[in-house]
């Protein structure tokens, strides 16, 4: 396609904008913010334009994925590595989500960040660019490159602008833990990628890191090898998702991160893992994934329940929301491994809705922290009387998070549960109890923070309410969640082909599994 260069712009503009805002810091403190905001609005505009003008419903979904837009340039030809970007419905939706939350993240740090403003925006935008790169990369080397590249800026965001817990662990500790967890698991994935590349070379005599090339090799692998390689990919994605035994970095990272960092982390970074499973984990190793599904789904159920129960007992408001993320991402894992169209479509909705609602909740936590200088729920209470707007908005997003019908999260969770009930009724039933727990932790959050008697904490009876900027941001997020809850069809249409492809790949594996039994 002629305009495929636009993909490069999607990737390149945030890099450029980030660098510019760093450079102009010496002239003005507000200029970096404006540059960052304008850049992100531009890329958001581009991605929306791509959505409105492009056609993402291909007539005949097959087991080979098809791209609406593709850009390819040579990079390291001696290793068969190319700068290969591709866009389909799934990646488009996630890119839009990334850019939207990017704008929100810049908006919510307008007042919060006052140190080293330019450098902050450099890190924020480079992180966003890295995430967009992950969503667009169709070359495994390029994918890994972006996968690792988004870590360093995130590390800086937490380590430099985070909040250390009084008397607790420092923000550098949290940032380092985040980095080591993801890097370690990432390197295991690199081993799996390289093994795949060498197997491809053995089979065809050609060096290639290309997605389509490796897809054909991977699907024809010896089951035993495929199993190990699948595990390599799974570990990287499981840590990032995070799936329960590998989750311990997340609450720490959220607890210390600045608001923009939390929005970024919960809203976007976690989605890269789900995207990785949908784009690479399952399509590369459908058979192995199919065999592995019961294990993965048990982890998912464990995550849903564990995240919810632990969230309930948190007193730090941000850690509470961090644990709810773990619970919500459990639904995503469940849906991915169920592998039916309904479940996979539900995963897409759930990812977007969770991105929006968790992002909004973290922004609100930031606002509360700015006013009360605490995130401890036991020190709050009675806030409803002290603000007119913030508490009802928080209630709205808590309701979204607990899966109230009419809001986006409900659609996602409903589709996931309905879709997985067909293939794994037990897991679906167990997971459904997570919805009840969600109501418990969401309401306890609202109850502890906003109800009860107002406290005397020296900040006055009336706290400064949300500004117009903040109200506008919240209003937009509320409208989007409501829109997705009432009329999710445009989103579903966009991702339909991509999800159908994943389903077909997965189903073909299931079919061969059934057929191969009598042969033995």
């Amino acid at each position, binding site marked *: 396609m002629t305009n495929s260069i636009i993909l490069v712009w999607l990737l390149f503009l945030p890099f450029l904008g980030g660098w510019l805002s760093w450079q102009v810091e010496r002239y003005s403190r507000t200029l970096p913010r404006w540059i960052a905001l304008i850049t992100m609005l531009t890329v958001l505009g581009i991605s929306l334009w791509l959505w409105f003008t492009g056609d993402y419903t291909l007539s005949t979904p097959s087991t080979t994925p098809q791209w609406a837009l593709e850009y390819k340039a040579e990079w390291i030809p001696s290793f068969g590595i190319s700068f290969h970007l591709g866009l389909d419905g799934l990646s488009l939706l996630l890119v839009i989500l990334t850019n939207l939350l990017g704008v929100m993240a810049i908006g919510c740090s307008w007042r919060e960040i006052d*140190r080293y403003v330019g450098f902050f925006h450099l890190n924020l935008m480079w992180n966003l660019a890295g995430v967009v790169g992950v969503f667009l990369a169709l070359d495994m080397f390029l994918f890994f490159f972006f996968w690792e590249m988004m870590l360093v800026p995130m*590390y800086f965001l937490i380590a430099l602008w985070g909040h250390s817990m009084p008397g607790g662990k420092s923000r550098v500790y949290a940032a380092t833990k985040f980095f080591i967890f993801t*890097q370690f698991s990432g390197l295991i994935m690199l081993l799996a990628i390289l093994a795949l590349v060498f197997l491809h070379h053995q089979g065809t005599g050609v060096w290639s890191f290309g997605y389509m090339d490796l897809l054909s090799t991977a699907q024809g692998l010896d089951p035993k090898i495929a199993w190990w390689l699948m595990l390599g990919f799974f570990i990287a994605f499981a840590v990032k998702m995070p799936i329960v035994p590998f989750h311990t970095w997340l609450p720490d990272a959220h607890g210390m991160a600045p608001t923009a960092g939390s929005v970024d982390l919960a809203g976007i970074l976690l989605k890269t893992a789900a995207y990785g499973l949908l784009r690479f984990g399952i399509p590369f190793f459908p058979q192995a994934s199919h065999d592995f599904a019961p294990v993965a789904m048990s982890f998912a159920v464990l995550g849903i329940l564990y995240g919810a129960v632990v969230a309930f007992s948190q007193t730090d408001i941000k850690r509470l929301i961090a644990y709810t993320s773990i619970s919500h991402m459990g639904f995503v894992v469940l849906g991915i491994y169920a592998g039916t169209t309904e479940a996979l479509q539900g995963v897409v909705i759930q990812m977007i809705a969770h991105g929006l609602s968790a992002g909004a909740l973290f922004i609100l936590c930031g606002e509360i922290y700015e006013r009360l200088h605490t995130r401890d729920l036991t020190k709050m209470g009675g806030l409803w009387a002290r603000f007119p707007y913030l508490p009802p908005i928080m209630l709205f997003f808590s309701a979204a998070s607990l899966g109230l019908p009419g809001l986006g999260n409900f659609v996602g969770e409903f589709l996931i549960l309905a879709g997985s009930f067909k293939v794994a009724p037990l897991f679906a039933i167990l997971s459904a109890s997570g919805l009840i727990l969600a109501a418990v932790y969401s309401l306890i959050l609202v109850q502890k923070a906003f109800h009860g008697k107002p406290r005397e904490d020296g900040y006055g009876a009336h706290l400064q309410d949300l500004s117009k900027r903040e109200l506008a941001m919240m209003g937009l997020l509320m409208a989007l969640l409501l829109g997705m809850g009432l009329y999710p069809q445009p989103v579903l249409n966009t991702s339909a082909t991509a999800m159908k492809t994943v389903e077909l790949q997965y189903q073909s594996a299931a079919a061969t599994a059934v057929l191969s039994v009598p042969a033995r």
Partner: protein
Amino acid sequence: MNHAMTTQQLTALLPLILATLTTVVVMLTIAFKRQHRLIAAMTMVGLNLALLSLGPVLLAANGQPIELTPLLIVDGYAIFYMGLLLVTALGVLTLCHAYFEGYAGNREELYLLLAMATLGALVMACSRHFASFFIGLELLSIPLYAMVAYPVRDSRALEGGMKYLVLSGTASAFMLFGIALLYAETGALGFAEIAGKLAAGRPGILLAGAAMILSGVAFKLSAVPFHLWTSDVYEASPAPVSAFLATVSKAAMFVVVYRLFVNVGLFRHPLALQALTWVAVASMVVGNLLALRQDNVKRILAYSSIAQFGYLLVALVASGGRATEAAGIFLLTYIVTALGVFGVMTLVSSPMKDRDVEHIEQLRGLFWKRPYLSSIMTTMLLSLAGIPLTAGFVGKFYLISVGVDTKQWLLMGAVVAGSAIGLYYYLRVMIMMFQPIPVRERVSEPLNWVQHSGGAMLMAAMALVLVIGVYPEPFLNLIRASTLALR
């Protein structure tokens, strides 16, 4: 063999001849006129001429190896590494100039020592015979003892020098014994001749010889369990000398040993490879673990270099084929990066004072005071950690690809674990530079003139790290073309 030299052979010798001439001229000049700047400039010119002479050598060689006596061979491999070693030595030289400006004693002899050590490294890059190997090694090591202990009035430096002298001497003795054992069994000292006569020797004695040679080598590469000297000596040496130890000295050793491994099958005996594998695993794990608890940045870097050479040993275990390229690209990226890191440590300590800036706390807030220097340091630390966009990632990526190709799963596990552990201390040093400082002084401190060449060299190193990280293709092609002989 005809002992008269042809023009081609003389041309091939040019780099060695020029490096030798540099030492002689510098020595004589010091006798007549002591002036720091003059001597540094002369050494720089001499080594630059040696570097430039690689052009005619390439033309004369025309893709074919040139054999110079049974001792030396100038092939693409040797030319590439001579270039790399010379550029590195020149980098260290610029650092020395900035650093020793503050030294109260005689500064000029340092350049003489540096030039001699470089000559030794060049000899090692071309050597294909145990005699030239050993001569090169000693020519490299003996000046280094003096360089480590150069600030003689500093008891710490003296102690470091003594420690290095005694331990290095022991290692050399081991190596000589090993060489003697091989000679006793095969009656030859040239790598190729030994390889041809292995069948005649008794395997037990041959293996014992190989083991003794390897332990000497492991000492020089500071591989575990022969690493004990490393952190002490790096800490005690003046910062630019640590840079030399970490780059030129180690790289030269690796270059000749790699040639030995490819040429002499004895070293690829399963037992030897197994031993080497464990040495590599131990280096990665122990090096990284020991660095965790250090507060002295020079010691951290010393342990880091132990771990980095642990990674590099993967290429040695795999030797041949793509491993040659992997070793080349990893050495290139490591050298540039190490030069950068030690360079920054040198420049923040320049001009030399009683004690180098080396405690991690002394780096606090450096980014807000000296943004360029800290940006360089950040890039280099990320490169050592192997993060994409930097050269270190390309090097590590290539090594892992070789490891996966040859199915060295134990080594790969250690690389992954080592990298994860290593992150902790690289990030720790890095974030320290970004910590807020009480006084908000944002201006960068003016670089005074002595630091200009050092600063420019570091900027070039950073640019190279980023270029290799983003577009490694030309470098891969260069290395592939020049190492064809050893594939």
